[in-house]
C-alpha cells in the first residue's frame, strides 16, 4: 500500500490541478470577455449570480487540493524543493510558482470577487477597484501558470528530456 502512495498523490495532484487551472483559463479566456458583452446587453446577472459563484467555489478549493497533493507528492523532498537544492531545483521553481498562485487566489482573487459578486457589502467605488485588482491577479496567475506547468511537467521526473 505504501508503494502506491506517490502514484495516488500524483493522480490527485493532476485531478485538482486540472480543475484549478482549467477554471483559471475559463475565467481568463471565456468569462471576462463574456461579462463584458453580457454587461452591454443587460444579461450579466446570469453569469454573476449562477455561474461565477459555483466556478469560484471549485476554483479556490481545487487550488488548496492541488497544493496539498503536491506537498504530499514531494514528500521527503519538500524542503529541498523549496530551498532549490539537491536535484530538486526545477520542480522547486514549479512549487514556488504554484505556491505564489495559491496565495494570489486566497489573498487577492477570492476576497475581491466576494465584493464584486455582492457576497460582502461594497460601494460601487470599492467594487470598481475590486474588479481591477481581481482581473490583474487572475491575469498574473494565468501568466505564472505557463512557467509553472513547464517546470511541473519537466522539472523532476522528465527533466532529462530538456536537459534541466
Amino acid at each position, binding site marked *: 500500500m505504501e508503494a502506491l502512495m506517490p502514484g495516488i498523490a500524483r493522480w490527485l495532484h493532476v485531478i485538482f490541478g486540472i480543475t484549478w487551472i482549467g477554471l483559471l483559463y475559463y475565467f*481568463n*479566456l471565456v468569462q471576462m470577455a463574456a461579462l463584458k458583452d453580457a454587461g452591454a446587453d443587460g444579461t450579466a446577472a446570469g453569469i454573476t449570480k449562477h455561474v461565477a459563484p459555483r466556478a469560484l467555489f471549485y476554483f479556490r478549493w481545487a487550488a488548496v487540493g492541488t497544493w496539498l497533493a503536491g506537498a504530499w507528492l514531494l514528500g521527503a523532498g519538500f524542503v529541498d524543493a523549496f530551498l*532549490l537544492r539537491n536535484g530538486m*531545483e*526545477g520542480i522547486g*521553481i514549479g512549487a514556488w510558482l504554484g505556491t505564489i498562485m495559491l496565495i494570489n487566489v486566497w489573498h487577492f482573487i477570492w476576497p475581491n470577487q466576494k465584493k464584486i459578486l455582492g457576497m460582502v457589502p461594497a460601494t460601487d467605488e470599492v467594487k470598481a477597484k475590486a474588479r481591477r485588482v481581481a482581473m*490583474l491577479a487572475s*491575469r*498574473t496567475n*494565468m*501568466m*505564472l*501558470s*505557463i*512557467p509553472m506547468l*513547464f*517546470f511541473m511537467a519537466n522539472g523532476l521526473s522528465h527533466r532529462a528530456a530538456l*536537459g*534541466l
Partner: protein
Amino acid sequence: MKNPLESVAGTIISGLILTVVLVFFLKNFLA
C-alpha cells in the same frame, strides 16, 4: 506602455518570456 496583462495575448507572451528567463536562471545559477 500598456500593461501586458490587459490582454490575453500579452499575458501568454509574458508567461513564455518568464519561462525562458527561469530556465536560464535554473541552468546558469542553480543546477
